């Protein structure tokens, strides 16, 4: 019998959601969905998760290959589809008696708070929920689901509160407001796309092309990481995946095709480093005017930001921008966690990458 995990993550453009402040300007449906997947017990106890079907306001180029991007081999990722159609597809999958695997459905919805989830999706979630562990969407019309439901509620709550609640506690500044920092409302991806040279280009959402102090849909004026190269390396980039050389034991990051120590390329293995508790070795606070121009939008809306160099491994450091805490609040010797965040828009697409948040207290330790 098939079972399902349904992880819902919803981003609201402003205000509060269930008493939790809205996510920061660098969080959106995509980063929350990735976080949702990260927070799922993985592989889900009892069965390997086989399917992820993200949809909603994802950057289209990222929606279709989330599994690959996350370095989760075996995940069959399907392209975004309209909600009812996706719901129908999910139902048929769940109803298939020959289906042995599990289903993970990530729902980054932009459904207004309190509004019902479209019927076919509700049905699919309910069905999946009835068949096994599931996570319901908060605020949806689904039944609560008893003990499992409470556990699932906790999971969703934890996911949502992971950074936001901490930010609220540590950052006395008012939540940023305005069009430039809207999260979901401003992320209405235009569906108008035109194949260009075998790839797609997207038109700029109108929300960003009007009234913004800086055009966020920058066209590169010089050196930068081209989109295809960025996509090709996103898995390692987002998962802090280093390479370990089986021949000499060297570890290096980011991934590259041959060992920088011994030069061999035949025994490289992917090693995901822990994204928790990285020790900070250097810090700086970049003040407006000292940012690269890709960060003009961010610097204009939320001002200074902190950047840290943190140790991820005895031989590997990473450079990360701090988020979810006041600039200057992280010092050398502190620990941070690496989380996926939206970085900046360039040439019609958001760039995502790791940022740092103050480390969550280690389980089992007391202050």
């Amino acid at each position, binding site marked *: 019998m098939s079972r399902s995990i349904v992880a819902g993550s919803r981003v609201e453009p402003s205000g509060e959601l269930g008493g939790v402040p809205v996510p920061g300007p660098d969080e959106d449906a995509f980063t929350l969905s990735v976080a949702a997947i990260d927070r799922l017990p993985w592989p889900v106890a009892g069965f390997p998760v086989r399917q992820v079907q993200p949809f909603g306001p994802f950057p289209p180029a990222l929606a279709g290959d989330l599994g690959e991007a996350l370095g989760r081999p075996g995940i069959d990722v399907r392209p975004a589809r309209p909600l009812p159609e996706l719901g129908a597809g999910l139902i048929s999958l769940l109803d298939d008696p020959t289906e042995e695997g599990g289903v993970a459905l990530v729902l980054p919805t932009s459904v207004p708070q309190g509004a019902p989830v479209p019927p076919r999706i509700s049905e699919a979630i309910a069905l999946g929920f009835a068949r096994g562990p599931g996570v319901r969407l908060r605020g949806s019309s689904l039944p609560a689901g008893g003990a499992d439901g409470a556990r699932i509620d906790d999971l969703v709550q934890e996911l949502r509160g992971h950074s936001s609640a901490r930010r609220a506690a540590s950052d006395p500044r008012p939540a940023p407001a305005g069009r430039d920092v809207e999260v979901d409302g401003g992320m209405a991806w235009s569906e108008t796309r035109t194949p260009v040279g075998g790839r797609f280009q997207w038109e700029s959402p109108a929300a960003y092309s009007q009234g913004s102090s800086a055009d966020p849909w920058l066209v590169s004026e010089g050196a930068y990481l081209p989109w295809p190269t960025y996509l090709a390396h996103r898995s390692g980039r987002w998962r802090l995946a280093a390479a370990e050389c089986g021949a000499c034991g060297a570890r290096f990051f980011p991934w590259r095709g041959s060992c920088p120590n011994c030069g061999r390329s035949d025994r490289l293995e992917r090693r995901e480093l822990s994204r928790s508790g990285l020790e900070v070795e250097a*810090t*700086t606070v970049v003040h407006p005017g000292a940012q*690269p121009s890709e960060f003009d939008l961010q610097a204009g809306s939320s001002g200074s930001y902190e950047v840290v160099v943190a140790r991820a491994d005895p031989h590997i*450091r*990473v*450079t990360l921008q701090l988020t979810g805490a006041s600039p200057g609040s992280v010092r050398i010797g502190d620990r941070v966690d690496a989380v996926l965040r939206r970085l900046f828009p360039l040439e019609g697409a958001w760039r995502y*990458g790791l940022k740092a948040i103050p480390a969550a207290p280690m389980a089992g330790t007391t202050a």
Partner: protein
Amino acid sequence: MRRRAAVVGAGHTRFGALNESPRELLRAAVDQAYGSVDKGLTPLDIGEGFLGTLGFSGWQLGNASAVLAEEARITGAPVTRVENACASAGFALRSGILAIESGARDLILVAGVEKMTDAPSRRRRYWLGVSGDTEWERMAGLTFAGVYGLMASAHMREHGTPVEALAEVAVKNHANALKNPNAHLRKAISREEVLASPLVADPLRLFDCCPVSDGAAALLLAGEDVAHRFTDTPVLIAGAGAGSDALALQDRRSMTRLAATRRAADEAFQRAGVERSDVDFLEVHDCFTIAELLALEDLGFAAPGGAAALELSGATRLGGERPVNPDGGLKAKGHPIGATGASQAYEAFVQLRGSAGDRQVRGAETALAHNVGGSGASATVTLFSVG
């Protein structure tokens, strides 16, 4: 014995926010270099040219060396653009030195130019980061101010380096620039003013940072055996060294020492056969005040963590035991990226010929110039001595 190269002429435009185009700046620096050759020189005798430039804001990203050939009136001779970020001209100079030391050329033109002030702010900020690590540092929101801010924070943590030592570098170099008619920032500043200036990349403040400048400098190198045809007082290049390191700070063994500088210095001193105690003054790469401290430590003039005390003692001032950046350094003279390495060599040339005017280091016979690319991915060290 190895054939050495000698500087027989040098030119330098004013540094600052200038009206001239890159072509005009190059021509001015080269013409001044030609004019400085005591016994005259025919441009067409120049065997080869090397141009240091980042091509800031994209003024001539490809084939920029052709512009040097045209403006220097040596078209026909091979010319090459050398690009190692802020060390572009240091490495152009090195290319010229190697061409002469190898015997391949007798007379070489080395020039550096950058035009930085006429690009719109956003484009400028874009370009100020292009020489950093693109894949990580830049995507974390860093330009070089941020990278040097990280290095400063780590240095302070490791050695207890006081911000007053950083401020002292700025105060000293501003004072020196007052005596340099080519300098960009000719304004005395106090330690209090430095420490009260706005933060740019904590702990670095506005007055810890070099300005964005336009300018050009040019050098004429000859084999020491033919140098007498051009002047009776050539400045010898006693030894040159260079080195490299990982592009990104995160990938370096140390974040408070520049391995590229250490290697370059060791090579230069070894080739020159001189000791550090022989050096009368230094031109070091002080794009940010912390960089001057790092330079003194990595070049071997202070122990790790010891440069702060050296600066605060006054030993590095003009008139001190061993002046550092008598021309004002990048910090106050200005830092037109691709011109800086040539500008440092220009200072060595005029100082060792005793023609540096108000900022003359008395009795200077040996000088060191140190040029760094980016945050330390590349570096050159060149030792000059009186002929």
